């Protein structure tokens, strides 16, 4: 049994959620649907852990679908780079699935709950597939699977607030534009190289020299994925989609969806076009990305400061955090990319924790959480409030939390390649983010309403997953070796692709 599993790990992590999503879809019993989904995401995480061990001593696992060798068939590749986002998606996927049950029964029509779980697993399968595949067109297929199911999940928030329909529609249109741009780029590349395999493309592109089709293809692919990753001026769909989606969906999407897209940006610019780095990729593009990232840092933070609705506030802050991650990539040095990988992991932990505690407050009070309705809630819900404070301080970058580690490495990398002005800007925007964090903590704890203290009973199935995330936030803030080492290994592996 074991050798069979070990041999097929790269495909098992994709088809486990995929096949379970089809089984879950036809179930009538909502409880059973949840149990099966949890089982599926648990299996996926177990397989991912096996895969981590495999990768740590093999460093590169390649899997041929249907036994067709790469330039013809589809190849899945797991290496030290892709294992990081796979780990993020499967861990957050499991925690969010455990967390989801109460919310889905409350927020979604009873008849639709099992179909919601089906879409949920399909999103997870799509996201993991996006990371594992080494075929440019197969990547497009998974892009469509994950974003279409995510759109449907966002629109399911319409029972609580009908604005979810508009949010889902915007996400659909912009996501479709992004995916189309990507596939136009892939088509152009296929036209000039005759191959879709990423490794094969990387070998064939340098021979083409300054080919206009390749330049256009690169631009289309990058733009398409930047829409999906919500890099600053292309982030319009994000705040509403996160704010009006059903609560667990906000958690899952905020923690994983944009991270995976950022990983694809890295893959496109370093793996596919890395071999002809000087001609196509970064030297010009990286300054565009750098300034967009700086704009994102400030625009996201300032929007968050003036926002009243807390879920939307967190979504705006996500835009700013994506700015930090893109900033690391745009430095185009090994420490820069390592720092953006570190922040990729840490931000997934931070945002999952923040969204989980905020939607938990919404669940207990049955109200939409905005700056006014949170007044005094901190004293009524001590456990949730505790988790919220830890994650919020982590977002601001307080020492002993994961946020500090990522800010530290980002500032170090920025100082090494750009001098003092860039770390200064990073620090200013971090300081600005304290304003909205303090606004929330003040409302939750120090509000006048908190004088009459009546505790709401907190449910263990909601606060246990939340505490796990909070624990991870502190644990990796103190013992960050695992994340840092793996991020540096990944960034060195990426940089070695550039000749």
């Amino acid at each position: 049994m074991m050798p069979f599993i070990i041999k097929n790990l790269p495909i098992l992590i994709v088809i486990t959620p995929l096949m379970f999503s089809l089984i879950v879809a036809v179930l009538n019993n909502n409880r059973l649907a949840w149990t099966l989904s949890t089982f599926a995401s648990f299996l996926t995480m177990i397989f991912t852990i096996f895969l981590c061990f495999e990768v740590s001593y093999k460093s590169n696992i390649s899997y041929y679908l249907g036994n067709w060798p790469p330039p013809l068939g589809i190849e899945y590749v797991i290496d030290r780079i892709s294992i990081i986002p796979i780990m993020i998606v499967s861990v957050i996927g499991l925690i969010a699935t455990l967390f989801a049950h109460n919310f889905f029964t409350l927020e979604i029509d009873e008849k639709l709950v099992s179909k919601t779980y089906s879409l949920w697993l399909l999103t997870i399968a799509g996201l993991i597939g996006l990371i594992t595949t080494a075929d440019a067109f197969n990547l497009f297929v998974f892009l469509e699977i994950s974003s279409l199911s995510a759109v449907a999940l966002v629109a399911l928030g319409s029972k609580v607030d009908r604005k979810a329909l508009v949010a889902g529609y915007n996400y659909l249109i912009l996501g479709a534009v992004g995916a189309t741009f990507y596939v136009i780029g892939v088509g152009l590349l296929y036209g000039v190289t005759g191959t879709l395999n990423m490794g094969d493309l990387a070998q064939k592109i340098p021979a083409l020299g300054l080919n206009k089709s390749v330049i256009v293809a690169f631009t289309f692919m990058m733009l398409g994925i930047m829409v999906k990753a919500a890099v600053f001026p292309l982030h319009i769909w994000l705040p509403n989609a996160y704010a009006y989606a059903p609560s667990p969906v906000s958690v899952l999407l905020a923690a994983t969806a944009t991270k995976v897209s950022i990983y694809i940006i890295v893959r496109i610019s370093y793996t596919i076009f890395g071999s002809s780095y000087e001609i196509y990729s970064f030297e010009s593009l990286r300054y565009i990305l750098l300034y967009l990232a700086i704009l994102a840092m400030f625009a996201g933070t300032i929007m968050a400061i003036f926002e009243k609705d807390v879920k939307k506030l967190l979504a705006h802050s996500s835009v700013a955090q994506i700015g930090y991650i893109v900033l690391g990539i745009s430095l185009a040095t090994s420490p820069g990319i390592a720092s953006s990988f570190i922040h990729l992991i840490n931000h997934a932990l931070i945002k999952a924790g923040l969204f989980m505690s905020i939607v938990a407050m919404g669940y207990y009070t049955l109200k939409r959480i905005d700056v006014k309705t949170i007044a005094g809630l901190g004293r009524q819900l001590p456990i949730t409030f505790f988790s919220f404070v830890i994650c919020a301080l982590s977002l601001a970058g307080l020492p002993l939390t994961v946020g500090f580690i990522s800010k530290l490495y980002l500032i170090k990398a920025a100082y090494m390649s750009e001098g003092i002005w860039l770390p200064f800007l990073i620090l200013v925007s971090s300081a600005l983010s304290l304003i909205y964090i303090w606004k929330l903590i003040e409302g939750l704890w120090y509000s006048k309403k908190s004088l009459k203290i009546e505790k709401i009973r907190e449910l263990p199935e909601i606060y246990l997953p939340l505490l796990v995330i909070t624990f991870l936030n502190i644990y990796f803030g103190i013992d960050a070796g695992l994340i840092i080492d793996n991020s540096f290994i990944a960034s060195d592996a990426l940089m070695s692709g550039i000749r």
Partner: protein
Amino acid sequence: MDNLILKVCTKVLFTPIILFGLYVQFHGDFGPGGGFQAGVIVAAAFILYAMVFSVEDCKVIMPPKLNFFLLALGAFLYGFVGIIGLILGDPYLSYDVLGTTKEAGQHIGILLVEFGVGLTVCNVMISLFYSFANFNFGKKNND
């Protein structure tokens, strides 16, 4: 619609359309055709029936629950045929092990997979038609 000619013609055409769909389906592995086209043709028979008689009548011959079940079943069949190969020791989606020779295995595999595709496409078409036909503006939609 209450037109005798249309009703009789639909009754006459219903089975030949499905038969033609099945022909396209099973022709698909060695000629033009296949699951996608066949699924749409078979669904066209049901949609024609619903348009000439009524959506309610069509729901008698293809209940929405069965429709949804078949929809998932088709996709499941596709994945499951891949898993059979995986259990018998080859990579996912490799059909060599299904038959006595490699060619026979591929033949069986593609036939089953195309059948799954046909089933899913047909039922997606029908369920799309149902959800648009049932859509009441301003009212809450129950299906």
